[in-house]
């Protein structure tokens, strides 16, 4: 079983050096064209060309279909973008879980939300990379919302997915770094492992512990509508767009 890995045509292997020189390329070409009369050759090559074109077209078409299907029509090249797209489409309901906030109060999500919009992020306080940025950006969105709406029509909530470490004490300290007031913008943990997992699963938040006490996770802004369903999932790096979107929703609500 020898696999030839040569990058040159195989013919040279079969002929010794001297012979190759004697026959030369001329001879090789002649050998190849000894297939039949000129006309027949013409016909064959026409058929060949056509088939080659067909085959290439078919492959390209297949490739196009494959990429189209695999990327939701060239929209989602990462699973994260696919997830955003999916969730924005399906608008899952936020599960009614029990929260424990930085002031050691416990209540369910529905009690907290009660006919308001909720602007949600997921984080953990030990995080040194994305989470501070995420919360910082959240703070900027918070500031861009007119005061009238805050607390009345919309509340903010940062949920920790590291309940073991993030007790109320830790959260109340963490909250002050970003100017969260603990009332209209609360930081809370979901104590019950099962409930936590349901939320993460429903909203497609993926959290992988890395063994060092840190987590690799995805981040986004989640806007929950008044009915408790997810309205929109937004890129957390686009602060102004997110704030505008929220404001637009709140205003249209008022007008109606």
């Amino acid at each position, binding site marked *: 079983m020898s696999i030839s890995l040569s990058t040159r045509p195989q013919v040279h292997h079969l002929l010794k050096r001297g012979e190759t020189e004697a026959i030369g390329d001329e001879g090789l070409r002649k050998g190849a064209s000894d297939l039949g009369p000129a006309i027949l050759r013409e016909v064959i090559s026409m058929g060949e060309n056509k088939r080659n074109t067909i085959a290439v077209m078919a492959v390209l078409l297949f490739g196009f279909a494959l990429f189209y299907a695999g990327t939701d029509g060239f929209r989602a090249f990462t699973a994260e973008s696919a997830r955003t797209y999916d969730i924005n489409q399906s608008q899952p309901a936020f599960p009614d879980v029990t929260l424990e906030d930085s002031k050691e109060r416990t209540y369910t999500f529905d009690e907290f939300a009660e006919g308001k919009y909720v602007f949600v992020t997921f984080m953990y306080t030990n995080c040194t990379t994305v989470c501070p940025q995420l919360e910082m950006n959240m703070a900027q969105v918070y500031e861009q919302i007119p005061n009238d709406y805050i607390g009345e029509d919309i509340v903010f909530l940062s949920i920790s997915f590291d309940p073991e470490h993030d007790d109320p004490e830790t959260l109340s300290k963490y909250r002050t770094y970003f100017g969260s007031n603990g009332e209209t913008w609360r930081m809370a943990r979901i104590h019950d492992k099962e409930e936590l997992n349901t939320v993460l699963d429903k909203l497609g938040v993926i959290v992988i512990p890395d*063994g060092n006490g840190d987590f690799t996770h995805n981040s986004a802004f989640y806007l929950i509508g008044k009915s408790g369903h997810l309205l929109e999932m937004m890129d957390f790096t686009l602060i102004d767009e997110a704030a505008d979107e929220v404001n637009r929703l709140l205003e249209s609500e008022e007008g109606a």
Partner: protein
Amino acid sequence: MHRLEEIWLGLSAGVLVLFMVIVGYQAFALGMGPPSHKETIDPQKVDQTEPFDKPGVYETGENEYEVVMTLQAFGFTPNDIEVPAGAEVTFTMTSKDVSHGFQVAGTNINAMVMPGHIQEITHTFEEPGNYLVLCNEYCGSGHQLMSTEITVK
């Protein structure tokens, strides 16, 4: 290829694969994998870092113990350790200076303890006795003196 050669190589490959299967089964299904803890620590600030600021033996559950241990040239802290027979003991270790080895003669406890890294190994001591703990990675002129004992009662 010769027929016999092919049979021989086929068998060899089979044995090697079987070997891998056993190793893999033990490591992943039976949880007998080698100590591979991943946390890190500043090797120059071990004394100020939790939990190594308070090395010692802690009872963490029913017949479960955690030994927080630092290794330095040429000794182990805490020094003499006492646990009851049948206790499941987890050693959480780090080095304050150079590379050390943590070996308990007569058991399968054997782990490298590197500066900057926290290593963990768990063992259940069934038999009472006086176990010899020694450093098995060269750490300097007093390397042969670096030892302690675990007393299992």
